[in-house]
């Protein structure tokens, strides 16, 4: 582990940060969260052409930039900081990683270039309501009939599932259990028998969908039945990305709390001069820095293909989730009444924190997973 970013990585961060600041003021976030797709196609296009974020982690042979998990996580942190509304998480991180992890070379050649060019957006449909995104939660079975793989079942919590051009999904061999018999598939968004519904969630800035597969013909991604390990690793990588996104949001909240406490005057003093507020902020800084350290270390582990990845992914996700929610709650408190209003931006982050808290499983589950990975 390096425990530090390279100069290039720090410059990359600045570039992304600048783009987010320029393109995603809260007015934009508010406009987009009210739309169906939840992002601005033009801005996304600009982001693809200018920085190529959509394929930052895709190997060059598939048209990507060939960077690693660290750069991807840097991007996630900055997007999270600005609550940037984009398909990056749903399409590039979730679906893109799944294709990289589960696909054979021909599958990658088949699907990744369009993702890299920014021409196509994908979504990843794994969970069926349990919320853990693990193999145990995959109940949908695939069936092989007259040369086709067919899917019948329901998937939920699908990020950007309604707006994606194609869906990467997971089903299991009939009569298989656990990690055995797991198979990845790709389904075109307009495939007959696929119905998609936007879910009503507490976080309008991240669109989730419920998909119904009614005997839908699907193309296999990787060797059907052998996808268990890929599923595990895919979600671990996504946990790390989410953890980094969360610490970005938490940092922004803390900044806003400190700033407001510095200008808000009560009893003839800036409220930031009262220990009740001041010590809260110091405590939040500690929590945010601890969560950052975990998120960064997990990103390094992901980048280095470290055997510790599963444990560190769980640790960083759990710590980031607690920290983000705590910071959001306290930032509302520090703002007082105004922090509970719709005009104030704090609630946008609070809701992102709250929805991220449960994504891929809650903290209790992740702590347990961490211990098991450490043979404790």
């Amino acid at each position, binding site marked *: 582990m390096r425990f530090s970013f390279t100069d290039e990585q720090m410059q990359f961060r600045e570039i992304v940060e600048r783009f987010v600041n320029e393109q995603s003021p809260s007015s934009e976030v508010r406009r987009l969260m009210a739309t169906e797709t939840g992002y601005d196609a033009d801005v996304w296009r600009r982001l693809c052409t200018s920085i190529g974020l959509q394929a930052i982690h895709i190997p060059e042979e598939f048209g990507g930039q060939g960077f690693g998990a660290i750069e991807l996580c840097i991007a996630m942190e900055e997007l999270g900081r600005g609550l940037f509304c984009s398909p990056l998480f749903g399409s590039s991180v979730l679906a893109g990683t799944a294709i990289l992890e589960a696909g054979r070379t021909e599958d990658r050649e088949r699907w990744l270039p369009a993702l890299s060019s920014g021409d196509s957006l994908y979504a990843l449909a794994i969970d069926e309501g349990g919320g853990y995104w693990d193999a145990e939660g995959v109940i949908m079975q695939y069936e092989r009939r007259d040369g086709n793989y067919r899917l019948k079942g329901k998937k939920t919590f699908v990020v950007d599932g309604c707006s994606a051009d194609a869906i990467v999904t997971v089903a299991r061999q009939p009569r298989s259990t656990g990690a055995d018999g797991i198979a990845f598939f790709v389904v075109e968004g307009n495939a007959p028998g696929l119905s998609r519904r936007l879910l*009503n*969630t507490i976080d309008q800035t991240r669109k989730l969908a419920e998909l119904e597969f009614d005997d839908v013909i699907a193309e296999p991604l990787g060797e059907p039945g052998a996808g268990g390990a890929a599923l595990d690793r895919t979600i671990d990588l996504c946990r790390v990305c989410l953890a980094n996104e969360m610490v970005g949001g938490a940092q922004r909240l803390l900044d806003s709390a400190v700033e407001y406490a510095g200008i808000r005057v009560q009893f003839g003093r800036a409220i930031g001069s009262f220990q009740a507020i001041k010590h809260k902020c110091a405590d939040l800084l500690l929590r945010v820095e601890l969560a950052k350290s975990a998120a960064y270390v997990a990103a390094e582990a992901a980048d280095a293909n470290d055997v510790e990845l599963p444990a560190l992914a769980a640790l960083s996700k759990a710590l980031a989730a607690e920290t983000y929610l705590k910071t959001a709650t306290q930032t509302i408190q520090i703002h007082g009444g105004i922090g509970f209003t719709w005009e104030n931006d704090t609630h946008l982050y609070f809701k992102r924190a709250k929805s991220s808290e449960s994504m891929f499983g809650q903290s209790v589950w992740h702590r347990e997973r961490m211990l098991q990975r450490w043979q404790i």
Partner: protein
Amino acid sequence: MLADTGWGCPEWPKAWFGLDYPSSLANAVADEISQFGALGVARSGVRMLAAATLLEHGNDAQKTQFLRGILTGKDTWCQLFSEPGSGSDLAGLTTRADKQADHWLINGQKVWTTSAHHANYGMLLARTDWDVPKHRGLTYFVIDMEQAGVEVRPLKQMNGYASFNEVFFTEAIVPAERLVGKVDGGWSVALTTLANERRVADGMRAWGSVQKGEGAIFAELAAEMKTVNEPYRWYPQRAGRPDLVVSQGRETGVDRDPVIRQAIAELLMLEKASQWTARRAREAHKLGRPQGPEGSLGKLAASHVARAAAHAHTMIAGGQSLLAGEDGPLDGLIAEILLSVPAISIAGGTDEIQHNIIAERVLGMPKEPRADADLPFRDIPRN
């Protein structure tokens, strides 16, 4: 009708639609009002605060003019104290009242005003002297809300409701005879309103979440209020709805999970202990004993209970906890709880202010050196 029998508010003076009941029955009002649970305080509550304040500080003309309208429910009242620039520091308000020949001119802005959109009268606290320390330059008025100089705008909260209003005064007019108490003596009058507000709130908390009213008058009123109070339907959710935790745990089956069981247990312990503490306070009051510390802790305890409840609800709902509306557990009620609980530690005095009050007034701990106590108001730094 009921109002005239004196049974509407038995503890009021005989002269004013009451029966001179001993003050030990004062809680009656609070308890009765609390029968509407969260609904009560929103409307009928505020009206009762006006009554309590006028009974203590109003002159006979004002009592004659307003009390009956309050008791019969003819008039709706709102409280115009808080301002964008003065939340925790209420006495730092800057809405001004300038004396004219036979009336006062009001200019400024209020916020967090419940019911302002359908109130006919407002209890207004405004600054009449800027050259004395902040508490000593305030005056209390009854303002007619239905006039050109008063504009009411709803204020939307993060949970989607719009329960409060911003109220803007531009050359609004208050006739001289609508001044309650003395000029520059408004702070002590406001304290009466606030004391009653606390009592109502404590009463409600003691009763826990929404309860059924009893008796004709409450039945009518409750029905009538159902529509009026739509904006306040989330108030019980603000308190975390601990009452739903066990059933939800059973519903989802996770109440067999040892870790979640601990969270449920911690919540129930906190909730029970809070209710018992409120009961201790009420019993002591009934027995005419001096109020102990247990009487001042209700609001702070409510914050703890609400947070513990939100935590338990989140664990119980699991992945579903991010779903809202008809997609979410209990048709979105859980989501509404999670998005409403942050208000409990802010509304009606932040937890920080509560800590100050408890430490200084109950524990008698030394006050902080005050930057603003004795300065003329105009010299105090402010927003």
